[in-house]
């Protein structure tokens, strides 16, 4: 396979050693199909083992490898090197974050704000040991589904011009998650979340630049979530709540096969298993 040599200009900075960030260049032989992350691993394994970056899943699921590639926040594992169509590629850490080392940034602010908006279902019926499932229609699911795809990679905060000027802003990621849970038909803590996001540092600090939605590698639209939160804060939301499913039918349809035996010791089959349980599997 044909290889093309591409120069990677990577911002290096170790706060305890360097006075200020600087760029270091590396030449990498790139083949068709190589991602930026693979090129970074090539550099670390063959050219400079001191370079630091985060990565984990390599398939756009974990959000660890978000960085500022060619002037734009992207996931390194989802960015095809040759598709950037440049013989020089500049990589910097995500803006609007403190640098820990090289391309690794401090994401504590992201997760702190995420935690603030109570990103979990709150319901008086929710327990740690639910006995029935909630009924949720497809239409109810679609109300929040796209916001469920958020990886917490932090690209949206890196792109946000408001985050650049106000570190107290809750940020598009947290606000989109507030919308996600407020819109979930199983959740009943909308008012509690509005106490947190309906503030000057919350939804009203957003200037609707829309850069967060443009930057999101998973196609989530936080800007829309923020505008919808504003609408709901003024006019209220016409949310449909879902409730627990009714009692299970006693006579099961004959075309539905037996559920597999439980794999967890002590798990209940709720009368739907094949009756053999763990014995049947052993």
């Amino acid at each position: 396979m044909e290889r093309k040599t591409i120069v990677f200009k990577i911002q290096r900075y170790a706060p305890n050693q360097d006075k200020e960030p600087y760029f270091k260049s590396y030449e990498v032989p790139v083949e068709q199909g190589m991602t930026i992350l693979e090129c970074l691993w090539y550099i670390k394994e063959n050219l400079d083992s001191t370079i630091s970056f985060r990565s984990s899943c390599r398939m756009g699921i974990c959000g660890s490898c978000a960085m500022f590639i060619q002037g734009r926040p992207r996931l390194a594992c989802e960015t095809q090197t040759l598709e950037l169509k440049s013989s020089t590629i500049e990589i910097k850490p995500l803006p609007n974050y403190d640098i820990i080392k090289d391309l690794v940034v401090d994401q504590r602010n992201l997760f702190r704000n995420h935690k603030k908006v109570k990103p979990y279902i709150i319901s008086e019926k929710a327990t740690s040991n639910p006995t029935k499932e909630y009924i949720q229609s497809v239409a109810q699911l679609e109300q929040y589904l796209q916001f469920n795809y958020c990886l917490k990679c932090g690209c949206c905060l890196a792109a946000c011009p408001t985050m650049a000027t106000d570190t107290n802003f809750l940020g598009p990621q947290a606000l989109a998650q507030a919308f996600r849970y407020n819109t979930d038909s199983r959740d009943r803590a909308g008012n509690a979340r509005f106490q947190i996001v309906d503030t000057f540092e919350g939804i009203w600090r957003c200037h609707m630049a829309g850069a967060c939605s443009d930057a999101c590698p998973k196609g989530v639209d936080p800007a829309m979530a923020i505008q919808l939160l504003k609408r709901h804060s003024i006019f209220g939301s016409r949310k449909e709540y879902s409730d627990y499913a009714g009692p299970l039918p006693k006579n099961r349809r004959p075309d539905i096969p037996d559920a597999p035996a439980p794999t967890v010791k002590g798990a209940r089959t709720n009368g739907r298993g094949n009756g053999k349980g763990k014995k049947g599997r052993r």
Partner: protein
Amino acid sequence: MRESRLWFLFVLAGACMIVLLGAHLFVMHLETFMGYLGITIHEPLAYAEVMARAKSVSWLVIYMALLILALYHGLYGVRSVLLETINMKHHSTVTAVIVIVGLIAAVFGSYIVIQSYMMGGL
């Protein structure tokens, strides 16, 4: 109070001001346009005309409403600009200062409007 309620009042005040400020502008400064509508206004800024309006209850209500709405709308905007530029720990101080300035201006403005009403016809 939730920020959304403050913002909604800000927008509502702006919408009301379009009507009230429009009435003020047409009566005081755009008498030519009023002439096109068939309403003749002679020397709206003359002392006698000003005092004639001052003794009118309708104008008293309009001016009081305009004063309060304009103060709220303007000062909410000033507060927003200041909060975006000032450190968060000073936010409550900024809001308090804005409220105090607004109250002083409202009392002073009300005094002039009410005093003019009480002097009406003099």
